[in-house]
């Protein structure tokens, strides 16, 4: 806390805010966080006084707050003051803040940014921060985190696509009987080198995107290991062709698409990689590499390359994250991912059981207000499998393999309108 005071005294308000958020997230006894201990000290009437003082005295009002007796008032004062002096557009997602513990990003948010009312409850930092989200980029597990923005030239287009009060999510399951070409290497590992009929799968993927666009879907997610790097590139090329030919509202222009994941070689090492792309012209928004390998037929998944940082995207819908299959609930990466204040989490998956996925989805929704969308594909030779889901509910499969779930953005609970 002394360091926070030092930051304030030297005029480093964003650094102070980032550090205070780190302190709030620190674990105390019973698995709770320091924030839980701070919340009973807060009195709502203090905030009105604080706003008046901030207007009258500026940063001097912050220095007069007794940080030991009321750390949350200090947090709110810093949140308010940073908002006033920096403004929402002066801070860009690539601005990094050194907060003494490590590096953080202090993102400005605006009304309607992500979440839902479940974010607005005690025990959640988002409840106390009106103007910012603070994302720590490093952690004790040594797994780097990064935040990226929608690429230049795509922001107005994306924002205009998310203006409705509803968000439609499309979950794809391929029913085209195309099989995986799995290669077992000598040292007990497997990789997916391709699929039995690439053209058929490309057509299926494009059909799903086309149908999703016709149904007004905003977010479309395809399952794990269902495409190849070539199919991924072709999808983008086709989107670019259509954007040049038909303009911005072409037949594949679903705002955000996760076209499944694929095994690919990156600098001679294999990885399982998924990307989210912008449907306007196929531009990559952000990517995710799988970290926890699965075992199939006694062989481990060949994941050799160092994975990219856990990346999230700031969008008009809020903070979006992505992870592949069991990374959602297994290993240190899951712990880090679950600690982030995400609003949406996309999970391409290929699993015979989705029980752990659903349990994690429920917990994350209840504690952090994160809406999780899982697109699941049947494993090769699996007798039993689950279809994907949004949040922790299960839905009947649609005829075309595309299930659409509509969510009201401001609801306290998800309201499903099939």
């Amino acid at each position: 806390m002394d360091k926070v005071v030092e930051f304030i005294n030297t005029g480093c308000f964003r650094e102070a805010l980032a550090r205070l958020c780190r302190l709030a997230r620190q674990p105390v006894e019973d698995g709770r966080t320091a924030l839980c201990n701070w919340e009973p000290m807060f009195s709502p009437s203090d905030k009105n006084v604080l706003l008046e003082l901030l207007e009258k005295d500026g940063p001097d009002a912050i220095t007069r707050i007794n940080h030991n007796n009321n750390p949350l008032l200090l947090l709110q004062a810093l949140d308010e003051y940073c908002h006033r002096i920096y403004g929402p557009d002066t801070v860009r997602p690539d601005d990094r803040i050194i907060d003494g513990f490590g590096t953080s990003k202090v993102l400005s948010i605006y009304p309607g940014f992500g979440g839902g009312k479940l974010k607005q409850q005690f025990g959640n930092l988002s409840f106390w921060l009106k103007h910012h989200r603070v994302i720590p980029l490093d952690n004790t597990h040594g797994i780097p985190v990064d935040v990226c923005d929608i690429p230049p030239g795509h922001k107005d287009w994306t924002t205009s696509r998310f203006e409705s009060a509803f968000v439609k999510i499309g979950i794809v399951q391929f029913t085209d009987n195309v099989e995986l070409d799995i290669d077992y290497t000598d040292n007990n590992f497997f990789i997916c080198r391709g699929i039995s009929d690439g053209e058929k799968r490309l057509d299926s993927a494009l059909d799903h995107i086309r149908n999703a666009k016709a149904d007004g879907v905003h977010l479309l997610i395809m399952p794990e290991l269902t495409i190849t790097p070539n199919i991924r590139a072709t999808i983008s090329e086709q989107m670019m062709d259509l954007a040049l030919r038909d303009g911005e509202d072409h037949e594949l222009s679903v705002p955000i698409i996760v076209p499944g994941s694929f095994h690919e070689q990156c600098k001679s090492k294999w990885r399982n990689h998924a990307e989210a792309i912008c449907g306007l012209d196929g531009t990559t928004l952000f990517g995710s590499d799988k970290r926890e390998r699965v075992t199939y037929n006694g062989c481990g998944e060949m994941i050799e390359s160092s994975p990219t940082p856990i990346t999230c995207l700031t969008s008009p819908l809020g903070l979006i994250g992505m992870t592949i299959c069991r990374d959602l609930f297994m290993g240190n990466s899951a712990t880090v991912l679950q600690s982030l204040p995400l609003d949406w989490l996309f999970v391409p998956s290929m699993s015979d059981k989705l029980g752990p996925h659903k349990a994690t989805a429920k917990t994350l929704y209840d504690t952090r207000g994160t809406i999780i969308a899982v697109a699941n594909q049947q494993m090769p030779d699996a007798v039993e499998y689950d279809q994907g889901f949004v949040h922790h509910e299960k839905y009947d499969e649609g005829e075309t393999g595309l299930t659409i779930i509509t969510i009201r953005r401001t609801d306290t609970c998800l309201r499903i309108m099939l």
Partner: protein
Amino acid sequence: MNTLSLNVSDPAILVDKASPSELFAAIRDIKEWSERELNSVNRIIAVWSARAIAHPNDREGISELQRLIHYTLNRANSVATLPAEYRYRWEEASDMLEARRLNLAHADPKAQIDRPHVREILLYLHQAENREQPQSGLAEHLDVTAGRVTQLIGNLEANGLITKRKHGRDNLLKLTETGQQYAEGFDRKNDTRTTRGASYLRKAS
């Protein structure tokens, strides 16, 4: 679509002659990024950026150009190693365009209308039934400082929603035709946002 050739004496003339889609397609068609191609693309980006920034209100054009720069940066990087001087120039052009885009986005009257204080001021002037109202009265009505009112009025005047006329030591404010149209659209009784906006304004200022 026939692809445009960038092999012309001055590629800048293509900015006038060709559509953005044609230019995009031409850049997409480049197979080898030699010095000549880099110079051509660089010239097009420079001229096009300067025009887009000088244009009074062309957010779509700016976004289109930003997409072209973003694509070109990725494309040139993947085909050959892009010399740093070009990368920096193009990134700077994109940053300038982003600043201009934000500037235009904030100046958009539709964006202004959604702000609580704007609704409050427009309703106040609308209730005066087309008579000019003193600026000092507005400060009193909103319970904010005179300095804050000057800032708010400046925004509204710049967006053509109100007119301001000097009268002694005070200013007289009146709705323009556009402002009148927006104000008529508000239903004060049903619009809770306005009341919330006023209280927010009093606190924030």
